[in-house]
């Protein structure tokens, strides 16, 4: 009966890599995200290595991608600041997009691990928490760099008694970014694996397509929100 199911559902088990007594890493997350980073960097490097006036296929693709990422940052941050934060926002978008799609498109299940299984790296809450914390560090840094100590005026606007709410907001922003991405990806993968264990063939495909669509929207949302938070601080 066990072998009848093509996939079994494992939640919360990881392939641990031990560094020393107290520190250990989630191996499948690290390997998956390293893979995504390497693929994206190699593609972008080789497609823009020799720029031509009449672009070829890959160069056209990278240029379209750049225009799209520029429009995300530009629409939130405005003409005078977008260039400073474009690298951050586009890195976030590309990494999350690559991670989300790698979970569905790459047949990771071929590789057997002793414990846990390969999935999208954003399936691990540590990855999304790291991205969310990076976002909040960036908007603090942006505020200090552009406004100096006048940054703290933000906390007593529009009036002083909103101070606690403004402070709480600094914590809820990364929390909601974190849970939004994590929950969406986990929900997608759980739905697909539950359907796979019920009907292994053909039926899960529309759900997987929906998952691809939803996860690309999530990458867009994360990048848009990160740039919106930065814009809110420096305006």
């Amino acid at each position, binding site marked *: 009966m066990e072998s009848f199911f093509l996939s079994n559902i494992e*939640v*919360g088990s990881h392939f641990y890599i031990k560094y020393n007594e107290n520190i250990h890493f989630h191996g499948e997350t690290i390997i998956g995200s390293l893979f995504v980073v390497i693929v994206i960097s190699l593609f972008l490097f080789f497609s823009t290595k020799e720029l031509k006036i009449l672009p070829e296929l890959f160069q056209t693709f990278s240029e379209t991608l750049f225009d799209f990422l520029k429009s995300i940052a530009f629409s939130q941050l405005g003409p005078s600041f977008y260039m400073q934060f474009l690298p951050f926002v586009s890195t976030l978008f590309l990494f999350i997009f690559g991670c989300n799609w790698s979970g569905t498109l790459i047949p990771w299940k071929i590789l057997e691990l002793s414990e846990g299984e390969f999935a999208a790296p954003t399936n691990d809450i540590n990855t999304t928490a790291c991205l969310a914390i990076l976002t909040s560090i960036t908007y603090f840094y942006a505020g200090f760099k552009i406004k100096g100590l006048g940054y703290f005026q933000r906390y007593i606007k529009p009036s002083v008694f909103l101070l606690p709410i403004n402070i709480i907001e600094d914590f809820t922003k990364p929390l*909601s970014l974190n*849970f*939004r991405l*994590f*929950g*969406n990806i*986990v*929900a997608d993968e*759980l739905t697909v694996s539950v359907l796979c264990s019920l009907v292994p063939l053909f039926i899960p495909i529309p759900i997987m397509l929906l998952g691809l669509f*939803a996860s690309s*929207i*999530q990458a*867009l*949302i994360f990048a*848009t929100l990160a740039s919106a938070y930065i814009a809110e601080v420096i305006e």
Partner: protein
Amino acid sequence: MVDSIIAAASVIASALAVGFAGIGPGIGQGNAAGQAVEGIARQPEVEGKIRGTLLLSFAFMEALTIYGLVVALSLLFANPFIK
């Protein structure tokens, strides 16, 4: 005995969490989609812009359901009350 009572309560609680979390965003998404259709019917030439905004706001509403789902999943798979 105590553990099994906690397990049963967590299963019911996770079902309730997902179920109730679905209500609000469902109503909200229905409203948003209805308004978007109205807007497209009135002004078909801005369909692309309306669709983009609609999808973005859908994802925000979706997030509220997902919070319920995260609570349900943590109750089912990572329950802090069962040793």
